[in-house]
């Protein structure tokens, strides 16, 4: 089990603030956050490349905060791979094996086993400058696995790969994890997190703001930032007083079907659940608001309308609907949100 306890690190223009999380042995933990959120720094602190100002890192109960980098048994795959340019692929993979004091025969055996597993056995005599990004990534992975680490740290491993290679590498990472290696993987891609993680930690402005299973993060996001990460655009602070309404962002009221009273939290609904019409129509929907189109963004599923209706609402409609209603920027529209599509999350 890897535990990060109250880690802080201050730089002139950035600081990590009281970071704590734990990863069970064999788990796949994804740390999700925007670029510049401090994700890479956390990995560097775990690996020992950077010393924290405060806090500790423990591995299986042992405090390793001040242990030497080379004694930690934690493998780090850098975002830019850091494959040694003057060594062949084979020598790169053999590098940690030599540090471990294996003999030549054992090294050769292990190198070819790892190369086969990573499907780079045909590249062993090549120099890194002749390899593609995907190949370099595999060399870096094979090299780190040769260390037989207790824990593998991956810094944006899929970021610079094309779609096909991503799928391949994802299944490879899953396979490595299934073999029992604990993985801490950092990314800014929510989909990547959902696809791989047992547990997701969300980091924002140098702080972990939610730590849960991907499902829970998706269904129960703790902030607008996380909801946006999960692809939910309509996310508002909500307040329920006595009555039958929920007040969103202190501006707009919607019908309260949550059954809760006198509490606050968040309300969210999907862009697909917002119905747009040219004028007010009689229907069973209770939440109807007049608004103005402030932006029209083409997406692969149609058009995303951004409507100012007191609160900013995102609605997804088809191109045909948009044409039929002759929508343009500044058009006046009515939006309707079915009460059953609205989810209220009480804040803890």
């Amino acid at each position, binding site marked *: 089990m890897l535990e990060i306890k109250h880690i802080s690190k201050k730089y002139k223009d950035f600081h990590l603030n009281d970071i704590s999380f734990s990863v069970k042995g064999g788990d796949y933990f994804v740390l999700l956050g925007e670029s510049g959120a401090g994700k890479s720094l956390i990995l560097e602190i775990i690996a020992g490349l950077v010393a924290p100002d405060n806090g500790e890192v423990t591995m299986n109960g042992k405090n390793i905060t001040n242990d030497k980098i*080379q004694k930690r048994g934690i493998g780090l795959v850098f975002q830019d791979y850091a494959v*040694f340019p003057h060594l062949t692929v084979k020598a790169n993979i053999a*590098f*940690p094996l030599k540090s471990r004091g294996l003999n030549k025969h054992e090294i050769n055996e292990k190198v070819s086993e790892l190369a086969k597993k990573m499907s780079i056995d045909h590249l062993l005599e090549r120099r890194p400058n002749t390899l593609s990004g995907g190949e370099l990534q595999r060399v870096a992975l094979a090299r*780190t696995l040769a*260390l037989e680490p207790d824990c593998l740290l991956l810094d944006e491993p899929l970021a610079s790969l094309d779609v096909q290679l991503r799928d391949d590498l994802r299944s490879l990472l899953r396979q490595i994890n299934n073999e029992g290696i604990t993985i801490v993987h950092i990314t800014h891609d929510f989909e990547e997190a959902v696809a791989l993680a047992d547990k997701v930690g969300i980091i924002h402005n140098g702080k972990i703001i939610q730590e849960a299973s991907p499902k829970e993060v998706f269904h129960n996001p703790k902030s607008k930032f996380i909801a946006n990460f999960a692809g939910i655009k309509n996310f508002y602070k909500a307040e329920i007083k006595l009555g039958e309404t929920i007040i969103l962002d202190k501006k707009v009221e919607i019908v309260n079907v949550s059954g809760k009273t006198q509490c606050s939290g968040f309300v969210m609904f999907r862009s697909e659940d917002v119905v747009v019409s040219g004028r007010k129509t009689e229907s069973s929907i209770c939440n109807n608001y007049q608004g103005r189109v402030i932006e029209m963004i083409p997406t692969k599923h149609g058009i995303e309308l951004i409507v100012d209706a007191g609160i900013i609402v995102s609605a997804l409609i088809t191109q045909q609907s948009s044409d039929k209603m002759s929508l343009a920027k500044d058009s006046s529209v009515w939006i309707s949100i079915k009460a059953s599509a609205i989810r209220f999350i009480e804040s803890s």
Partner: protein
Amino acid sequence: MKSSYNILNLIFILLGGLVLLFIIAPLLGMVINTSSAEIIETTKDTEVQKSIWLTLSISFVSTLVFAIAAIPLSYLLARKDFLGKGLVLGIINLPVVIPHSAAGIAILGFISRDSVIGKIAESLGLTLVGNPTGIAVAMAFVSVPFLLNAARDGFAAVPERLEKAALNLGASPTRVFFRISLPLAARSIFSGLILMFARGMSEFGAVVIVAYHPMTTPVLIYERFGAFGLSYARPVSVVFILVCLVFFIALRLMAKEKQK
């Protein structure tokens, strides 16, 4: 616009050509004014042969010996920040700016029989003044900045990430230095070694003060000029320059080969 650019180019080429001519003309003039018979005769002169061999070998050994300490210092200067680093950087470049005759006087004081080092050397049965060891010290003093600077640039150009990655892969700092940092900086270090060697063997000012004898070639050229005049000094100069050029070109080619 285009024509003014062309005129500017023309002026630059002209000025550049003058500088090149300034370097080449005296050397070429010297070679032209020396007959091949004179050159052949000079190469047979045992005093000349001995001095060239002495100069090359002392410079070579002094470069290698001082490199053992200079390369680690370059690494420290490239990688570590410490109090007084600016001062250290200034100090290592001092020999480039001070007059070499003054450097010779300083070294002489440092290694003479009356100095601590001179006394220690003497107790070991070694005389530094008027000895190849003294010459090596003088050569190193004036030429070591070239190695230090080139090696420091070389180490600074090695991405620190690679060193950290190597540590993360379980290598000891010593192994990281020898397997990662040193090979990746090798080209710059090699260039630095060439420059140090070349600068050392051409040194006159500091060497002549520390050791007139045994005579290195630059001192021999000076002596022949003083005793017999220009026409006697010229063939030795030509031969020594040719030898220097052969070494310099060969080493440069080797450095290029390494680059590939």
